[in-house]
Each structure stands twice: as structure tokens, then as C-alpha cells.
């Protein structure tokens, strides 16, 4: 009888404790929701100007040493962007959230915009600006690296033209990338904050492209993370004929080993940044 009573009590305790824990979970979930509310910033009153820019940094403007010892310099680095959208995200967007973004204000820049990131004045390259945007902190941006429909980079979302030198060997290269990629990034990470539009003034928002992710950085250790994940230049140099490489992704798929081609393709999922902050990426089609 005593044993039976204990069994009843045991079951009762377990059921009650499960219920209590469940309620505690609900309570904490509600608190988390409240904290999000407390952390939100309502859009400031007034209007200003938002300037959209693109930047390939010193790597592309001044050239650099690849992870496999090629001294790279660039004549042109055309990148074309469309669907450019700035957000006053709320709560502030983080790439860990995935592609879901909630916002108070969204500003869309229409059209296709191509920039040559090698231009010495492209620090950063100004694409366009929109006036009379609601003031506030534009802390997220999305865009598509898209195929240019006209101009020197027509048909390519990224077109690199340059020269590689190593041990007296010189290779002139033209590398066209057809792949289109969607990017979504959070707040700009860098020396200064960007995207903060005060009433009556302007602020810029930057799409940054890190070409050391593609070729690696010979100034860093060979086993540095940036170099372990980079494509380098050796696989392209191996394709040179009479000191030239002219290739696009379609031809590289046939010429490169499957592993090298997959590696090259994967680079474009982490080429784009917002300053030094990584972006989420997905291939279009």
C-alpha cells in the first residue's frame, strides 16, 4: 500500500514538474520577446540622402601577392549589381538569422549598376544615390551580383582583367564570371560606421568585395584560413597559352579539375562583404 502511494506520488511529481518547466519556458520566451522590443529603434524623423557604393579595397586597386606567389595587378574589375536594397532592420539583422529580415524602412535602388573597382577613385566607387530617404540607421543591405546587360562586362556579373607575374613568367588574364549571386549583409563593419542618415544629410552604404578570398594573400601564412580556402592563381596559370588566359566559368568547368572548379565556384559565396562583415550568399539559378 505504502509502495503504491509512493508510485502515485512519483507520477504526480513528474507531471507537475514537467508542467512547471513548461510554464518557465513560456515565461522566458515572453521575456525574450520583450527584450527584443526594448532593443528596437524606431525610425528617426526627417529625411536625408543614401549613397550606394562598391569597394574592392586596395587588393584590387593596387594589386597583391596571391597565396601561390603570383604578383597580381588589375586593369579592370567590373562588378555589376542589381536589386540593391537598404534596410533599417529591426531587430538589427545578423546573418545567423538566415534570409529572413524584418525592418522598419526599406529603400530600393532600381536598375543595373556596374563599377570598375580598379579605378583609383573607387575608394569606394559611387554607384548612385537616393534623396529623401527616411533618416535613421540603414544597418542591412542586400543585392544581386548580376550579369551586365551592356557595356564592357556584358554577360558577366564579374569580369577581371589583369596581369600575373611570377619568377619572370608573365600571364595576361581575362576571367569572366557568369554566375549570379544574391547577397544579404548586416551592419557595415570597419573603421567607421556607415549607413547612418541624419535628417538633412547624407550617408553611404558599401558593398565590399574581398578578392583575397579568390586568390589568397601571399602576405599571410600559407596555412592561414584565408589561404586554405582560396583558389589561388596556379590553376589558372596552368591553362595559359602563349602567356594568356581568357576564360569564363563555362570554359573553366571543362578545363579545370572538378575539385578546382567546385572550389572556384564556392569562392563567390564569400566574396561579398559589408566592410569586414560577411554576407549571406546564394546562387541565382
Amino acid at each position, binding site marked *: 500500500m505504502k509502495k503504491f502511494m509512493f508510485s502515485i506520488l512519483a507520477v504526480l511529481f513528474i507531471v507537475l514538474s514537467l508542467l*512547471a*518547466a513548461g510554464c518557465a519556458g*513560456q515565461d522566458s520566451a515572453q521575456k525574450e520577446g520583450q527584450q527584443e522590443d526594448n532593443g528596437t529603434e524606431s525610425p528617426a524623423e526627417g529625411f536625408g540622402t543614401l549613397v550606394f557604393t562598391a569597394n574592392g579595397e586596395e587588393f584590387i586597386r593596387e594589386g597583391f601577392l596571391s597565396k601561390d606567389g603570383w604578383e597580381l595587378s588589375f586593369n579592370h574589375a567590373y562588378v555589376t549589381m542589381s536589386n540593391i536594397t537598404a534596410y533599417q532592420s529591426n531587430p538589427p539583422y545578423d546573418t545567423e538569422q538566415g534570409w529572413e529580415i524584418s525592418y522598419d524602412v526599406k529603400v530600393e535602388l532600381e536598375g543595373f549598376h556596374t563599377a570598375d573597382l580598379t579605378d583609383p577613385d573607387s575608394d569606394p566607387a559611387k554607384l548612385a544615390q537616393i534623396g529623401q530617404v527616411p533618416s535613421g540607421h540603414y544597418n542591412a543591405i542586400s543585392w544581386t551580383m548580376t550579369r551586365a546587360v551592356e557595356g564592357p562586362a556584358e554577360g558577366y556579373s564579374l569580369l577581371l582583367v589583369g596581369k600575373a607575374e611570377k619568377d619572370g613568367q608573365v600571364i595576361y588574364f581575362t576571367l569572366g564570371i557568369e554566375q549570379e549571386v544574391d547577397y544579404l549583409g548586416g551592419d557595415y563593419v570597419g573603421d567607421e560606421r556607415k549607413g547612418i542618415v541624419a535628417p538633412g544629410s547624407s550617408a553611404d552604404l558599401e558593398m565590399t568585395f574581398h578578392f*583575397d578570398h579568390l586568390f589568397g594573400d601571399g602576405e599571410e601564412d600559407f596555412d592561414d584560413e584565408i589561404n586554405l580556402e582560396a583558389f589561388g592563381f596556379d590553376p589558372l596559370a596552368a591553362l595559359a597559352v602563349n602567356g594568356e588566359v581568357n576564360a569564363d566559368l563555362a570554359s573553366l568547368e571543362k578545363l579545370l579539375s572538378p575539385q578546382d572548379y567546385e572550389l572556384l565556384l564556392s569562392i563567390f559565396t564569400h566574396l561579398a562583404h559589408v566592410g569586414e562583415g560577411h554576407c549571406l550568399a546564394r546562387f541565382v539559378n
Partner: protein
Amino acid sequence: MNQKLHSVIRLFSVVLSLFIYLLLFVAGSAYAHGVELEYNISEAVQVTARFDSGTPMADAQVAVFAPGNPAEPWLIGICDSEGRFLFVPDPALPGLWEIQVRQAGHGGLLRVEVAEGALTQSTAGGFSSTQKAVMTAAVIWGLIGTAFFFSRRRP
């Protein structure tokens, strides 16, 4: 005579004690290179920054932005060799604090909620409701087991 000697010795002891006291507490504070140490206990934020590979972001640059002023850093500093950075946010500035950590061309932004003096990391963490339920049940079951043990019939 003997009593007089005792009185003198007692007086000498008192004077000597007083001298030692003055030497330690008065003269000491006047001539030694003393320091004054105080402490208070506060809630602090410790940031640990690592690269994706798990390597600590040693000596990374840190900029802390207080709520309502995202343009001007409230505090700047450097991570230690393990990628750690510790700071105490001003509890008078509740809201979303932002901590930017950068090194070698890579960086990230962390947000911490400070609401009415309480710190909350903006990213969710801790145990889930299910985990809490299982842990609570386990503890209760342990108590019941103990009760069974002591209530058993002894041979």
C-alpha cells in the same frame, strides 16, 4: 621601590606602543609610496572573439557603441591573446549595446541588451524548455528514489 619600577615600565610600554602606532599609521602614510585600492562589483560583458576555424582573434580591435549613438564609439580597446575583451556598460544607458571586433580584414558585430541594469546577450542561449523539463524531472525522480530507499522495509 619595586612598585615604582613597575609604574615606570608600564608608562614606558604605553609610550612605546603609541610610538609604534604613530610610526605605522601616521608616519607610514606620510612617507611610504602607498596605494589606495578600491573595488566594486558590477555586471560586465566579456566578449570572446574567434575566427571560424576557432583560432582566437588575438589583439583584435574592439569598438563598443552605446545605445543611441552608433556613430561614435563609447569605448575602444584590444582583445587579449585569447581574443577576450571585458567591459562594464553604463547601466544608465539601457538599450542595445554593439561591440565591433576586427582583425586582419575580418570582423563582426555583437549586440548585448542592457535593460534596467540587467545584461542579456541578444543571441539566444541556455537550456530549452524540454531540457529544463527533463532536468527537473530527473531531480524530482532522484528525490523520490531517495525516499523509497529510506522507507524500505528492513529485514
